[in-house]
């Protein structure tokens, strides 16, 4: 088993002339909860999509579990995208069947139990579900796997503070503790308490990669306070500075 779960060397991604990631070097080990933090457009989603093979790098190298991105790494990665990815004709149970067919680590019974605790009726058609319920179904799909790497793209964006706690609790009580969770967000204060490490991304470059304890010790401030300091010049969501 490879010691490092994520390895990026000189990783760059450009969309036409726009550079989304610029020479990223990143190593992440196992059993960690890592916050991928940065304002909108900093390259968080691009990095996650590269890790799960939805994008191809323009330059650089990328490995998950010591392997190039492919079917083997996809079997080890559980990905929560920032959008709905299923057909409306499906029921949640259809998706559970699909995940059970393709992922050996998918726990069907756990998925049903999670649905029950989240108040989701898994035999309802997805098209009859509200947006929030559909998001819960996607969260169930991701967290009912005993994956090595969880890639969660903005799991708490666009929901009220009470729902944020609920989602975070669901993630924390269900993830595989031998695996690593990479959470991208710009809502630092809400997730700071659960993080082991923080990666600050700015304009496609890594500004900082430290453990939370080191940040607090060296900087003498919370990650949220440091984030606001680092990204002060950047307009945040809602137009704040």
């Amino acid at each position, binding site marked *: 088993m490879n010691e490092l779960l994520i390895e990026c060397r000189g990783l760059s991604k450009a*969309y*036409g002339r726009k550079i989304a990631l610029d020479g990223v070097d990143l190593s992440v080990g196992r059993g960690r909860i890592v916050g991928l933090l940065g304002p909108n457009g900093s390259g968080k989603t691009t990095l996650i*999509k590269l890790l*799960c*093979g*939805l*994008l*191809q790098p323009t330059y650089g190298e990328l490995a998950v579990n010591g392997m190039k991105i*492919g*079917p*083997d790494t*996809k*079997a080890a*990665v559980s*990905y929560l*995208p920032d*959008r*709905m*990815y*299923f*057909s409306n*004709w499906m029921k949640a149970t*259809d998706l559970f069947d*699909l995940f059970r*067919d*393709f*992922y050996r680590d998918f726990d069907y019974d756990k998925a049903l139990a999670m649905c029950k605790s989240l108040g989701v009726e898994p035999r309802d058609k997805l098209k009859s579900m509200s947006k929030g319920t559909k998001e819960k179904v996607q969260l169930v799909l991701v967290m009912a796997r005993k994956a090595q790497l969880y890639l969660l793209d903005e799991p708490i964006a666009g929901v009220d503070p009470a729902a944020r706690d609920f989602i975070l609790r669901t993630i924390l009580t269900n993830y595989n503790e031998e695996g690593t969770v990479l959470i991208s967000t710009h809502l630092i204060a809400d997730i700071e308490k659960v993080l082991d490490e923080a990666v600050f991304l700015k304009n496609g470059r890594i500004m900082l990669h430290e453990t939370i304890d080191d940040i607090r010790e060296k900087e003498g401030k919370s990650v949220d306070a440091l984030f606001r300091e680092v990204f002060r010049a950047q307009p945040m969501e809602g137009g704040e500075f």
Partner: protein
Amino acid sequence: MLWKLLKYDFRSMWKQFSIVWPAALILAFINRFTMFGADNPGGSAFGEWMAIISISLFSGVCFAMVVVSVMFVLTRFYRGLLGDEGYLMHTLPVRSWQLVLSKLICALVTTVVNGVVGIAALFLMVPLEWDDVFDLELWQRIMWGIRENPDAVLYFAEFCLLLLTMFAVAFTWLYLSMAIGHLFHKHRVVMSVAAFFVIDIVGDLVFRVLHQLGAMSVLEHIAVWGGHIPFWTGILLLLVPAILMFLGTSWILKHKLNLE
């Protein structure tokens, strides 16, 4: 893994056609009585209206079947692999060529079932007498005919295979066009349409070059031989562009996937 992918593509196919296919067969059966029934109501004004309505509905359903089929082939690939559903399909632990092949097989099966439903609808519409259907002498004559000309069945199978290969070329052509259009950051649909015509021009150029090199005269000789060889030559020749376009599509999805 391909079988598992096919399982879900076939389920999607059934969801799409679960109304159109039975509707076509039921309306064909209704037409049997309104159009050709023994007590043809066409003599009365009511009967005439019934006949017009039922044949209009049947024609409408057949038209819908064609439209839904074209949309199904296009959307299962575009939305399923290059749209939001692609976020699910491309994160499954399968290879890109398996994703494309699954869509292609599903599209071909849809075409075959459309054909079968169309033929079955014709049989349902024509007022066959049960006595004729179970006429032993008729079936004996048919079986005897097949035994005398065993090649007839083979010719029919080869003709069907040739048609299916032509559909495979059309579908892979569409797939490659959409995959090329996806390489662009903006106006992807327009670029897909442009790619469709560029592939057509490239195919035409290749054909002209082959013609210049005298390849067509070889084919003309083969056609003169008769028998099964022209069919198989046609099938193999059509398979070449189908395989090339399939490989091109798979390569783009593997190396250039760009779900922004």
